[in-house]
């Protein structure tokens, strides 16, 4: 049987394979660990950690849509103290690689979160979520504004030092994603996570009112995959040296390979895990077979092959 080298890297962080969980789709790992060892993953990307405990939005928080779902969770969680005391030590104990996602309500909060993570041993990389659409005020979506996006990444860079690679998670809900990517790269991002959910809405046909408690929600799942492939392709084309963690509707090895061919060095599996807890490991094995089928001895050789 042929083998394929699945190892990959995001800036100076190395990973045994390119299949990660997606932030906000695997909590901090305990739930999926019942179904497969988390060491099977290239990395476990935690949900976005906030500075303080946050309830998140009222229910209903979810609506299934054609080949997708809309969610309005609202960055809920118990906050970074609980995360550092409980969730992260547990995750590191499993031997899994941990990418910690953070989200703040202000530039200063991102700085404070970065200071809390500085010096924490065992973290592979930091994902800076500047693109969650589920916030009280859409003006808070830092990734929709070049100046705010830059300010957040600069602050995280200064506060975290050179300890971990910073991956900036961007929103596809912008006119020119390459312009935002350019800003965060200049501000010190080592890599990019593409894409966060797209802002959407469902109106309940019975009540004729928005179905979600938060009215709007983030669209994920296979419905957004072509948007992810497009965004990754555009950004990789402009910034070929900046590693991309790709995500958006990946439900099979073939989907993952599309994102890799577009320019992703690693791929997060999110919504697919909701309907199949084993999705990440299945996708990894399908991807390995497909790479062999296409004659690649190394995953790295497939990154960005759609270009040129």
């Amino acid at each position: 049987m042929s083998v394929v080298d699945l190892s990959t890297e995001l800036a100076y962080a190395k990973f045994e394979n390119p299949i990660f969980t997606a932030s906000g789709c695997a909590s901090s790992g305990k739930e999926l660990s019942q179904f497969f060892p988390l060491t099977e993953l290239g990395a476990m990307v935690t949900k976005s950690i906030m500075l303080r405990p946050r309830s998140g939005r009222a229910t209903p928080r979810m609506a299934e849509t054609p080949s997708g779902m809309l969610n309005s969770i609202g960055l809920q969680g118990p906050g970074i103290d609980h995360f550092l005391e409980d969730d992260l030590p547990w995750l590191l104990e499993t031997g899994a690689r941990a990418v910690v996602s953070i989200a703040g309500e202000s530039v200063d909060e991102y700085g404070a979160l970065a200071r809390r993570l500085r010096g924490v041993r065992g973290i592979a990389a930091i994902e800076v979520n500047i693109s969650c659409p589920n916030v009280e005020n859409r003006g808070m979506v830092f990734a929709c504004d070049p100046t705010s996006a830059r300010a957040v990444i600069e602050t995280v860079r200064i506060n975290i030092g050179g300890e971990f690679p910073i991956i900036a998670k961007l929103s596809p809900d912008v006119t020119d994603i390459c312009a935002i990517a350019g800003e965060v790269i200049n501000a010190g991002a080592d890599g990019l996570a593409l894409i966060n959910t797209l802002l959407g809405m469902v109106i309940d046909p019975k009540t004729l009112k928005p179905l979600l408690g938060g009215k709007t929600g983030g669209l994920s799942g296979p419905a957004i995959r072509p948007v992810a492939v497009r965004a990754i392709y555009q950004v990789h084309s402009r910034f070929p040296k900046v590693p991309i963690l790709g995500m958006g509707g990946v439900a099979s090895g073939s989907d993952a390979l599309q994102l890799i061919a577009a320019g992703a060095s690693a791929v997060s599996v999110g919504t697919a895990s909701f309907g199949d807890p084993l999705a990440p490991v299945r996708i990894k094995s399908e991807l390995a077979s497909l790479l062999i089928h296409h004659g690649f001895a190394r995953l790295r050789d497939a990154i960005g092959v759609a270009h040129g």
Partner: protein
Amino acid sequence: MPINPRATVTTARILSNRKVGAYHHIALEAGEVGKLAKPGNFIAIAVGGEYSAMPLHRAFAIYRAKADGVHASTVEIIVAAHGKGSEWLTKQSEGSQLRITGPLGTSFPLPAEPVNVAIIGGGYGSAPLFDLADHLKSRGCRVDAVIGASTSSKIFAPLDGKRTVNSVTVTTEDASAGVQGRVTDVLEELIERQKIDLIYSCGPMAMLKAVDEIAQRKQIPHLVSVEEAMACGIGICMTCVLPIRDANGTIKMSRTCIEGPVIDSECVVWSGGIPEGTWGAP
């Protein structure tokens, strides 16, 4: 404590699928899932088949589960076709295969002493209560059931289920069966008459809340099995949350798939909305 330590992902086969009133009763050959299930647990089912445009799990309370040998078991569920996914499920024929995950969630805690129990089911919410009644009876409990729905076709009270309990009172809002009214209209009288010590209820949130008002007034412990919309059933989507008070008094938007579906009603914040200072789930 590990989360869902008995859960596996299994390819199940439909053994039978038949209409029962407004519902479908589906029996599954379910690998080890049924062997490990406890009353109150649920399973999550992937719907739509290979080319499905429905990416999310559908959750179903286990109606009955039994082991059929070392690695085999049967799991039975009651399905109300109120959306595209559940409708697809009701149309699957015998022999069809389904990807199921389970057993999931909390189970009904059982009293240590033989006490007088009321089980209250709204619509197909009665499904998990008959298996519970069986366990209660084997512990020497007296079990009285109240099953309510809007109309008689939505009452789920199978004959063998009725046989396991000491009495069944049916209520319908349109008077098409049993007593006209709601479960709460007959509950207080039952509590007095049978000196009820403990209540288990399963059904729509409005019913659970109404039953809880009576349970609180009468100071009777009340365990509820809630049904919130969920995308995954395994604790990662954070959509099925309810404000629940923990042992330290902190209110958290807790996942009803992990902390529930069976919850001590005393811990649930029934007032509606999200109280000030509420935390998110882990």
